[in-house]
């Protein structure tokens, strides 16, 4: 949480990016604690590894590594932004605190059992390739589209 806060408040975009990486790592650890080891690894590999690197590439490419004077918006924008964010926080916490307590302390359940049976990776992979096969394929097409799109958009001359 703290790193996320720092991420959004740093002036220098590079600093923001680096704090984001820290946030991602923290989240990976949380994932492990939540019985989602595969996802944790995935997070580090894909998110922190590939996506953040891409971010940093672009930052370097555009040479905006220097901190600009006023990256955070002026008084009006600040007011509105803080107001809305605060409201959202209130809402979400109301959701969490308003729910009856027993829903929040469930006994170790399905995930642990599945992991015990066949190992974590298999537990995730098996449904992925059977029940959720179609979304899987579509996602691959999506990645192809993104690939082509990014190349086309970033070229200087078409």
């Amino acid at each position, binding site marked *: 949480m703290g790193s996320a806060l720092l991420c959004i408040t740093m002036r220098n975009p590079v600093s923001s990016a680096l704090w984001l990486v820290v946030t991602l790592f923290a989240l990976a650890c949380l994932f492990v604690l939540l019985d989602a080891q595969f996802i944790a690894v995935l997070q580090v590999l894909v998110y922190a590894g590939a996506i953040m690197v891409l971010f940093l590439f672009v930052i370097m490419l555009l040479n905006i590594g220097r901190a600009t004077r006023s990256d955070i918006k002026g008084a009006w*924008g600040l007011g509105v932004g803080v107001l*809305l964010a605060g409201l*959202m926080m209130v*809402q979400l916490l109301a*959701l969490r605190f308003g729910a009856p307590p027993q829903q929040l302390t469930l006994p170790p359940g399905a995930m642990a059992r599945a992991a015990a049976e066949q190992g974590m990776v298999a537990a995730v992979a098996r449904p992925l390739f059977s029940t959720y096969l179609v979304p899987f394929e579509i996602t691959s097409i999506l990645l192809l589209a993104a690939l082509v799109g990014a190349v086309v958009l970033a070229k200087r001359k078409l």
Partner: protein
Amino acid sequence: MPALPLSMIWVVPALPLLGFLVNGTLALARPGAKRAVSIVGVGTLVLAFAAAALAVVEFGAQHATAPLVFRYWDWIPAGELQVPFALQLDQLSAVMILIVTGVGALIHVFSVGYMHDDPGYARYFAYLNLFVFFMLILVLGASFPVMFVGWEGVGLCSYLLIGFWFNEKINADAGKKAFIVNRIGDFGFLVAMFLIFWRVGSLDFAAVFAKAPAAFAPAGALITAITLFLFLGCTGKSAQIPLYTWLPDAMQGPTPVSALIHAATMVTAGVYLVARCGVLFALSPIGSATVAGVGALTALFAATIALKQWDIKRVLAYSTVSQLGYMFVGVGTGAYAAGIFHLATHAFFKALLFLGSGSVIHAMHRAYHATHSHEDAQDMRNMGGLARYLPWTFSLMWIATLAIAGIPPFAGFFSKDEILGAAFAEATVRPAWYVFWALGLAAALLTAFYMTRLMLYTFHGPNRTGEREREHLHEAPWSMTGPLVVLGVLTVAGGALNVPPLFGGVASLERWLEPVTGVASRLSPLVEVPHATEWALVVGAVLVAMLGIAGALRLLRPETLVPARLAPPESGFGRILWKKWYVDELYDAVFVRPIMWLSREVLWKIVDVRIVDGLLVDGTAVVTRALGWIGSRLQTGEVGVYVVGFVVGVLAVLVAALR
């Protein structure tokens, strides 16, 4: 003669309608086809009269006691209100269609000669035919709405024909005045119709009159209200107090129009209405008293005005108003046959008087036209001594004058006398009628006086028209004089229609109308007076008439008159009479000006300009522009703003979903 089924009675009004369509088309396409127009216009009327006569003969042979109603199609099927388009042939409508088509045909013939040089010839006959059509619908209608169609239609045609020469403002204004004043009366008619339907649940004459004695409490408030509202319609259509002011102005129209519409037929529609609804009026003593009272008062009032009018047609107009008053006294007293009898005789002699005056005016116009003079052809002060130039017109008009004054054995004597007799008889039971009778008698005196005055100034004494014009004065062609002769015969012989037992007659008309008027008479029976009283009344009436004529002959000096352009203005009491008791000025100040002020200041400036234009029309535009402005401000093109909107939306959804 083959007997056509009486359900073909629709042919009678259809013929003039056909005439209207043909003549109307000719008026638009070929206004110069005068011969065709004449043949169609007059022909349809003559045929209509023949058809009507056949129908009446056939009807009489059947000796029917109930009206024959012929339903042609369902006009208004609206739940509880079922109004078929139906025509009704009974004794009363039979009398009326004969009068309308007969006198109408004669006037059409007269118009051929009178309107011969007018460029609007075809249009004139088209309107005239349309008028006859509507009048026939009025008298043949079997229910209040059908009659109302005719009622409104004749009002429309009256407007069209009064303002026939609409290029002059005064004529157009007269037409407007007639229509608007009529409309006020029509409002009364409508309210009465609503009330009748509300209580009885039907608007057919047969149903209403059958249920009326049971549905309305005798002398109750509702039936009195209905009769008073109906009578309001009558005052409008038949020019009684307070809605008579349009009739004298209506003289702006062509003279045959005045003869047909404003003497013989349309203005009698009110009398017909009261006679038709006799049952309703018999159930309301106040209603019938009002009818008779207003009639009597109008009779005297109009007669006083006629004493001092110089325009020959104005005199006749006020005379019509006065005679209509007599008719209302008749039907208001419950003497329906007497009222209708006077309607018929009045149609004869008043049409004769109007057509005769038309003949005079025609001659005067010719004379002035030949010398390019701009004098008023209708002012009696410009006439005088016309007897030697227009002998036929002269004699025939004297016959009519004697008739209207009530000299025996001419038609008017019998009819007028019967009305006065009935009034006096009723007075023995209801003393208010003594006043009505006295008013009627006084009006008779004045009638004789002013009619003699008219004849004196027009035909007797020295001629004031002018040296050069005199040689152009001559009698009208036979197309105009012929109808005059026919009407003259009817005037002389018309009394035979209803000679009362007093003189040894059999009261044919009264017996003929008995099936129609009988119901009402049983509800409110006529009073009989001993024969001696009747003789006294008759002699008294004749003496009064002769007094009027003699008085005029003695007191008036046609030699002292000067032509209109040199005449000094009236003064004193004569001025009040000449100015028609200032009634028009009164109406103008009390009604017309305030309404015009209201229309201009309030309804126009405030409601129309500010509220409708400003608030509703411009306001809508302003609101739309404002909304558009707001919309455009949202489209800043900045992502940041859009994100804010996005977040707000998400919040809203969260809030809504979590409630």
